[in-house]
């Protein structure tokens, strides 16, 4: 019997949504021109972008003029976080952020100045009181907190705590955009289209109208909130995917939640496993666990050989050779780690097949280690 490979790494990149594919093909034909030009093809490209902006604003329940498109999720993070910081350089150049932020946030904060990092609890949730306190430290001008953690799924208390001294809040919503409603209480917020089933190379940056924001990079008009240089067709396809994902999320999210609950329960029966993250207040499609005495690279490689594509946060499985900062900050086991994230089409049967092979794979790797 042969089985089709099962892709379980949508938290890295979701397969293109059918709604995006159809839109992309149509838009490629008409969206080639520079949308800033005044000729007919330029106006067509501008119309497609305006259409995308309208769709995204409606899907996210924000105003059209608060939506900027960028060339990636990372670029949206950089422009959003550093744009808030660039408007407040008279007070300093420090950014306070949680220890469990995505690398794009920590890299940007490090590049800008000397950051202030605050810890997280055993489920990966930030100590929000620490973040509030850090935001009052001299020279801190922006605080950054993700909407939900990209590795363990835990939802963060965005909007639940007020920051003092008018310090604005940047939210990296790349892991949750489309899957969960946006939180309240942010000044700028970033998303990444390929995480929800749009094409890669499209980012969404939301900046509140009342927020002070200055382009942190070279720009003709630093105060202009015009789009970054964007792929017009890809952006419209991303908008179509977002609209579809938001419309489907009640049904898809409930199905995914139930499957992840099943996986969490069954994986916990395997000896010496750390199933991490908040079991309830979490992203619907994602779970992370670590097996004691198991090499993460061997685990991912063996599962791939059996037809299951998953990611690992273990040091031996990533090019930096450093363990996951997220798992380390939580006090979770960093070796033998895999992150499993479902597609919108993952079935109970796919999950059962995975759960049927996993214990044997873990046992054989442990056996080879002599345990």
């Amino acid at each position, binding site marked *: 019997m042969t089985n089709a490979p099962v892709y379980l790494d949508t938290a890295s990149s979701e397969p293109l949504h059918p709604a995006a594919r159809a839109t992309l093909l149509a838009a490629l034909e008409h969206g080639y021109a520079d949308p800033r030009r005044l000729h007919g093809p330029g106006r067509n490209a501008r119309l497609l972008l305006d259409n995308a902006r309208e769709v995204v604003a409606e899907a996210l329940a924000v105003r059209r003029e608060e939506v900027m498109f960028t060339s990636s999720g990372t670029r949206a993070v950089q422009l959003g976080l550093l744009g808030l910081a660039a408007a407040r350089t008279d007070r300093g150049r420090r950014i306070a952020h949680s*220890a469990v932020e995505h690398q794009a946030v920590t890299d940007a904060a*490090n590049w800008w100045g000397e950051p202030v*990092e*605050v*810890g997280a609890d055993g489920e990966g949730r930030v100590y929000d009181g*620490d973040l509030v306190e*850090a935001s009052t430290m001299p020279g801190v001008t922006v605080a950054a907190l993700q909407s939900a953690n990209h590795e363990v799924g835990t939802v963060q208390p965005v909007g639940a705590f007020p920051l003092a001294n008018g310090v604005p809040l940047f939210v990296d919503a790349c892991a949750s955009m489309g899957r969960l409603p946006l939180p309240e209480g942010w000044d700028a917020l970033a998303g990444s289209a390929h995480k929800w089933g749009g094409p890669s190379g499209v980012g969404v940056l939301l900046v509140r109208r009342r927020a002070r924001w200055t382009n942190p990079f070279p720009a003709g008009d630093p105060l202009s909130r015009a789009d970054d240089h964007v792929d017009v067709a890809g952006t419209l396809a991303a908008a179509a995917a977002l609209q579809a994902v938001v419309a489907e999320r009640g049904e898809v999210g409930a199905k995914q939640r139930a499957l992840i609950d099943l996986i969490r329960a069954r994986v916990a029966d395997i000896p010496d496993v750390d199933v991490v993250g908040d079991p309830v207040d979490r992203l619907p499609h994602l779970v992370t666990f670590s097996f004691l005495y198991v090499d993460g690279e061997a685990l991912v490689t063996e599962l791939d050989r059996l037809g299951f594509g998953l990611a690992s946060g273990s040091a031996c499985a990533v090019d930096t050779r450093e363990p996951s900062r997220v798992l380390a900050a939580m*006090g979770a*086991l960093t070796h033998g780690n895999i992150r499993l994230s479902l597609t919108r089409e993952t079935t109970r049967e796919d999950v059962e097949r995975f759960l049927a092979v996993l214990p044997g794979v873990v046992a054989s790797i442990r056996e080879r280690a002599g345990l």
Partner: protein
Amino acid sequence: MTAYSSKLTIHFDDDPWPERVLDCRGQLCPAPIIALGRHIGEVAVGELLGVAADDPAARHDVPAWARMRGQEFVVERPAEDGVPVYVVRRIS
């Protein structure tokens, strides 16, 4: 980077030092933890065992191992060559 958290490591001269230290210098994750798992049964309940490991993952994984296996993580302190030694106590 500024560490702004409640975690603080203080070393005292009278910190316990184990009679036996496993030498896992140069070994990558999860080898030092596998060594702990294989040898913890060789010390008596209540006694200490150390593991010298320069792999950065060990700093996180030794305490996680202790939590998961019902053992006690006691302290991290440097060996003479500066490599961290993670000291655990056998509880069960």
